[in-house]
């Protein structure tokens, strides 16, 4: 069930007894089918009740609210303990950066239109997909896909770059089979010519990007 309330901070959408994102999407469609344009541009607060969402599910909700209904999601909260989820007011997809302040574990997936910064590790079985660059302040052991919509200037950097698979734009590379030399310094992956290259990361990143 969806309950709508107008508050001074914006439109409050309360979710009760909703099991999944798909169900939420359907209910939202029912409610907003006629008044879609009326609410465009409105600030929205979502109250999840006792429902717990993962990072990727939260992202999905943000996407639905912003892309399908053109509203600004300002906060996601649980009704027993308020869990603030602050968002930038201005929405310029290409430049927007999404911060993940935890380790991504197996089965968790980030899909973001923009850059992604991860303050933690990306474990095997986890996936990060971004249309911009990917920065991992930790060990990248999972899958990373930078420039997912075709930007071959996108890069992937990590304190330790040990991905299962690395994708930039439409190029795919994977770790060599067998025992691999694993350097203990930060590295950067970028496209040069037709292939993905991995280099030690130095501060003059702009220079190495220009050298494409």
């Amino acid at each position, binding site marked *: 069930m969806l309950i709508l309330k107008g508050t001074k901070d914006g439109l409050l959408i309360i979710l009760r007894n909703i099991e999944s994102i798909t169900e939420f999407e359907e209910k939202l469609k029912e409610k907003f089918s006629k008044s879609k344009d009326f609410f465009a541009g409105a600030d929205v607060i979502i109250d999840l009740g006792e429902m*717990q*969402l*993962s990072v990727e599910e939260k992202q999905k909700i943000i996407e639905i609210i912003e892309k399908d209904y053109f509203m600004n999601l300002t906060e996601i909260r649980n009704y027993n303990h308020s869990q603030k989820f602050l968002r930038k007011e201005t929405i310029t997809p290409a430049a927007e950066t999404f911060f993940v302040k*935890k*380790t*991504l*574990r*197996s*089965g*968790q997936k980030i899909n973001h239109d923009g850059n992604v910064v991860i303050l933690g*590790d990306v*474990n*095997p*079985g986890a996936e990060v997909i971004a249309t911009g660059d990917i920065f991992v302040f930790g*060990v990248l*052991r999972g899958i990373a896909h930078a420039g997912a919509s075709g930007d071959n200037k996108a890069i992937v950097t990590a304190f330790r770059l040990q991905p299962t698979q690395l994708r930039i734009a439409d190029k795919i590379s994977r770790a060599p089979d067998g025992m691999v030399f694993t350097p203990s310094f930060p590295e950067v992956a970028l496209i040069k010519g037709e292939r993905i290259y991995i280099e030690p990361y130095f501060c003059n990143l702009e220079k190495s990007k220009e050298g494409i």
Partner: protein
Amino acid sequence: MSKVIVVTSGKGGVGKTTTVANIGTGLALLNKKVVLLDADIGLRNLDVVMGLENRIVYDLVDVVEGICKLRQALIRDKRFEELYLLPAAQTKEKTAVTPEQMKELCDKLKQDFDYILIDCPAGIEHGFKNAVAGADNAIIVTTPEVAAVRDADRIIGLLEASELPGPKLVINRLRSDMVKKGDMMDIEDMIEILAIELLGVVPEDEKIVISTNKGEPAISDPASKAGQAFRNISRRIEGEDVPLMNLEVENSFMERLKIFFGLKR
């Protein structure tokens, strides 16, 4: 303060049930009131491992459905007065119980016991959600295998999402001889990936197979190394600071002789 601890792993066959049986017995040895709750409906094992299969009349589903009283379904252990088992149903399916009902059941058990240990089924579906619902602590069991560690990582992620903070890790079936040769993941490798607190390391031990088949937890066997490890884990759960035991395999006489003559290091 009673604690509800779920023992889970994601992958099957890593030793969840053995861990529940041994830690449960270990806590009973420390004079705690303990109940072991088998949440693996349809594939119950805990009763067999505890050697209590022939005493089952009512089970978890009967309690939840109100067919019997909670007290009637609890089976007292053969060896310990204060150790009980609440068996799972074998003829039903996981969906016979809801997470809300499990939570309610755990809250009821909390009134009478110091520890409620939940044996979680393998997987991440309904059975897992049931097992986790009423718990306020979690123990993740893994073996030194890439697949098991991967699944443990997935489970830790799911526990984070369901707000069950601070799971602790038990590494099971470690073979220090293989680790030494570089054929097996070592403890540090696993801690680095999973990044959670280590509760204990249990060495591979033949005695576990024997004791499991006999229905007598290895923890009560003073000669068993795995039993010793489980005793330590139980004491750590009780808040004692017990150092990790030495897992080195003792060299045979011939090997010691070779080392003495410098033929082997």
